[in-house]
């Protein structure tokens, strides 16, 4: 099992992902706290950053497409302005002042 992650480490991870991908982090502060709690819990439970808004099938192979940032994030951000969890936003969505809402699940399983 990997070493445990703290919430601070998880926040750094999300910042790095957003920067690398050209996204920004959610502007909804309470949602950010909830999602980084969820990601930290999942890392420490499964050994990888399982998407906090999706259900794990219990192993890395089955969960591969929903390890954060998930395989659907780029398409969701392009179409809706934010990922399924609403953790990552496009810069345009952030500038629009819109509020993130649940979006359809792109994962087909």
């Amino acid at each position, binding site marked *: 099992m990997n070493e445990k992650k703290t919430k601070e480490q998880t926040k750094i991870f999300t910042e790095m992902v957003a920067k690398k991908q050209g996204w920004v982090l959610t502007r909804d502060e309470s949602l950010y706290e909830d999602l980084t*709690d969820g990601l930290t*819990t*999942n890392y420490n439970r499964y050994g990888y950053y399982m998407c906090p808004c999706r259900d794990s099938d219990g192993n890395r192979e089955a969960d591969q497409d929903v390890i954060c940032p998930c395989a659907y994030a780029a398409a969701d951000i392009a179409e809706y302005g934010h990922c399924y*969890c*609403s953790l990552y936003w496009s810069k345009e969505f952030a500038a629009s002042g819109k509020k993130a809402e649940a979006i359809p*699940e792109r994962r*087909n399983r």
Partner: protein
Amino acid sequence: MFDYLEYTEVEGDLRTHDIEVYALSTCGFCKRGLAFLREHKIAFRYIYVDLIPLEVKTRVKEALRAKFNEHISFPYVVIDGKSTLIGFLEPDWRKTLLEN
């Protein structure tokens, strides 16, 4: 729907419907959905499916898929054992749970 699951019961004044919620303990929109129900004093029961054994969870998901023939994502709400609300879209929850 499943007598082998231990749901958490939440008291509420509004009992128009029988509300059962399948949620993830790690999910932001699940948390908001449960908060919406509490805020509107809707009686419901819920279970965090990520906290139950994998084989039980698989059994539950298969049964839900068989009954409702829908993709399962969370929060997943079963209303009166007959219909569902999937994902927390507040206007839909408001319309379905408060206006009907």
